[in-house]
């Protein structure tokens, strides 16, 4: 079981695309089982015994699951038995578009397994998979390893690499910088490889500094505790949200931890103005928010950073246009642009986030980490009071993650109120002042940052009461 690691833009996805025949290599050799091979298409990759499982399940939404499998020539019974092994049930006559995403991922995995491949390529398979399904994936991977087959596992989650993999290769700037055994040396060494030794130490020092800071929540924010709450959620009911109440004060970072599908999507959507609550109240600065469109929420100072960068960015437009976009969302501001003012605000935002805008005219050419920074920069340039972050560090490299954590803390120190949802539990103590957990559409627990370790969080996320130590 071999992990492939690297910062965003290091070349992992490109390598996978070459291995699976999506793009052709410009040079070098591919040796499979001692023989040179050239892979020019996904079907050829399959023939040679390589089975990829990409981040976006390669299933066509308008065909049924059965038809999808027939399309690729996958054996239905084989897939069914693999699914049974993983304890996942799928209705084969259902349209692939109606199947929930995590189940679709498992299906994709089952399909790859059913082909009995020599090499299994898993690209970020555990991202956006709930922990119970991720566990089953690891079980499958271990079983596969026992059978003498190989797995190439691409991930950003270092904890998983240390727990599961035999070896790890780190890519940086398009070449491999080393292969190591993860258990000896752990995260520190891997990050060193990824960032380059000197940068790693500097980053470690910086993050140590930041970590020291974040351990003292509310520091430098004495006013925070007594100030009027910026956002009050009272008994809100919307979709999978049954009844949620909490309040958010200026200068505070409130974490929200939840397993997949417990209501966090609908909660964020409601707060951001994308959908209307069926019951309950949302108060911003004491006044009720009746949002029928994100515009209303934005006007009340409540802004959203979504998990999927593609939803928030204008791919063909420049960084500047992307950052300035929300400024013109009202017809009242459709007139001539004040260019110098705009330039100033945009530059401030770019500097605050340290966005690398070198020579790129279109945002789609930026690395994932930089793209995510742009989605946050938009709000810096337009102003806000409450920032809703939904899994902002998903699929981002370690260096950028650190930058985003410290940025969020700085924003909070400056008086912003931040609601922070993440699927990586280790992030909560680094960023938040306190954490609430959501289960079954209700808040099941509240923990101060110091007590928000993985175990306690997981317990609360599953709706279980805290263990009395």
């Amino acid at each position, binding site marked *: 079981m071999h992990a492939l690691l690297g910062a965003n833009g290091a070349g992992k996805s490109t390598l996978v695309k070459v291995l699976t025949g999506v793009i052709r290599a410009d040079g070098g050799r591919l040796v499979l089982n001692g023989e040179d091979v050239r892979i020019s298409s996904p079907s050829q990759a399959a023939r040679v015994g390589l089975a990829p499982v990409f981040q976006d399940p390669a299933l066509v939404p308008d065909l049924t699951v059965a038809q999808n499998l027939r399309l690729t020539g996958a054996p239905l019974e084989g897939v069914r038995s693999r699914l049974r092994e993983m304890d996942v049930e799928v209705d084969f006559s259902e349209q692939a578009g109606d199947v929930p995403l995590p189940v679709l991922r498992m299906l994709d995995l089952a399909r790859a397994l059913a082909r009995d491949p020599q090499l299994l390529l898993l690209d970020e398979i555990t991202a956006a998979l709930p922990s119970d399904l991720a566990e089953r994936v690891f079980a499958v991977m271990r079983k596969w390893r026992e059978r003498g087959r190989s797995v190439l596992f691409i991930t950003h989650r270092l904890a998983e690499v240390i727990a599961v993999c035999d070896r790890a290769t780190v890519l940086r700037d398009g070449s491999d910088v080393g292969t190591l055994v993860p258990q000896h040396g752990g995260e520190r060494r891997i990050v060193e490889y990824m960032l380059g030794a000197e940068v790693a130490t500097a980053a470690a020092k910086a993050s140590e500094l930041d970590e020291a800071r974040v351990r003292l929540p509310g520091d430098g924010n004495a006013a925070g505790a007594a100030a009027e709450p910026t956002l009050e959620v009272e008994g809100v009911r919307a979709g999978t949200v049954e009844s949620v109440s909490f309040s958010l004060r200026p200068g505070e970072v409130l974490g929200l931890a939840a397993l997949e599908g417990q209501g966090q999507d609908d909660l964020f959507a409601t707060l951001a103005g994308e959908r209307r609550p069926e019951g309950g109240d949302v108060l911003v600065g004491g006044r009720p928010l009746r949002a029928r469109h994100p515009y209303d929420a*934005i006007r009340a100072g409540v802004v959203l950073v979504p998990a999927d960068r593609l*939803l*928030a960015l204008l791919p063909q437009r420049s960084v500047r246009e992307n950052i300035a976009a929300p400024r013109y969302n009202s*017809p009242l501001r459709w*007139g001539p642009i004040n260019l110098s003012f705009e330039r100033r605000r945009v530059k401030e935002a770019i500097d605050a986030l340290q966005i690398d805008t070198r020579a790129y005219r279109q945002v789609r050419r930026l690395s994932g980490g930089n793209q995510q920074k742009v989605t946050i920069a938009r709000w810096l340039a337009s102003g806000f009071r409450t920032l809703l972050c939904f899994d902002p560090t998903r699929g981002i490299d370690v260096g950028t993650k650190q930058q985003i954590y410290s940025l969020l803390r700085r924003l909070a120190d400056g008086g912003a109120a931040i609601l922070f949802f993440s699927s990586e539990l280790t992030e909560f103590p680094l960023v938040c002042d306190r954490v609430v957990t959501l289960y079954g559409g209700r808040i099941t627990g509240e923990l101060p940052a110091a007590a928000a370790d993985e175990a306690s969080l997981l317990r609360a996320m599953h709706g279980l009461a805290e263990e009395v130590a």
Partner: protein
Amino acid sequence: MSAAAPEVARGESRLETARRFLAENPAIALIFVFVGLFVVTDIVNRAQSGHAFLAPTQVSTTFLYAAPLALLAAGQTLVMLTGGVDLSVATTATAGAFVASGTGRHGAAAAILLAIAIGFGIGLVNGIGVAIFRVNPLIMTLGLSSVTLGALTIYSQRRFVALVPNIVNTFGSGRFLTYIPYDLLIWGPIAALIILGLRYSGFGRMIYAVGDNPVACRLAGVRVWQVLLLVYALCGAFSAVAGILLVGFNDAADLGIAAPFLLPSVAAVVIGGTSILGGSGGYGGTILGALILTVLDSLLTILNASAAIKQMLYGAIILALAWLYAWTSRGE
């Protein structure tokens, strides 16, 4: 955008360098094609009739003819920037032509204003269908154009006093200083307004944004339907202006007055480099596209090509130009 001399990167073929240069400076390629076509037409004209084509009168005529097409293509550019298409520009122009001549007896100002208002209104209906009812633009504009045509046919069959106001005639077909067509005085300011507006106004930014990623726009608080509504309405208004110029040139409105301009209006936008999927492009390229198509039409007329040959060549050339553009922007 500086048109600096291209540096040849090491290991890059001259072709690749040319391709990269063209991709970064698309207007240059278009100007090249335009001038080239003019020269070809000149050669052919001399061969056929001994007269030059690269003469001031001919250049001026080309611009005169190009103006209505360029106005139709202006609205089309805006619509295509948002990722849609407007197949009703020709019928809207015809409506403008009929209204301008049908109400001409009430005075030029009233006739012109009413024609533009009707064009705006037709565009508004398109916008309502596309933006609020989420009807596919192809279908909506297509359906509305058929409705408009039917309505106009009925209107034209009733006896009415058609009077094209003098000023409309002048602007539609006249020139001043011997060589400068009056319609440039209409087209020019509109072109400037569009180019500057797209670049330097909030509305311009929103047009590009909506075409690039309407979901992201919504999350940024943009009410996309507002942008689309105004874009289609403006397109209708510009089409009506084109119709006014056409009726000024023709001195009479007839149902087919703008029909030959529908598909060229789409072609001009594509040739000019605006992506049909929306989110990138601009009017500058469209202007060149319109000029190129106008010269092309003259060339084919001079070649005494039958309507059939003309059509086939037209199709082949559109394809070739679009292919050229796709090739230069490959990998971008």
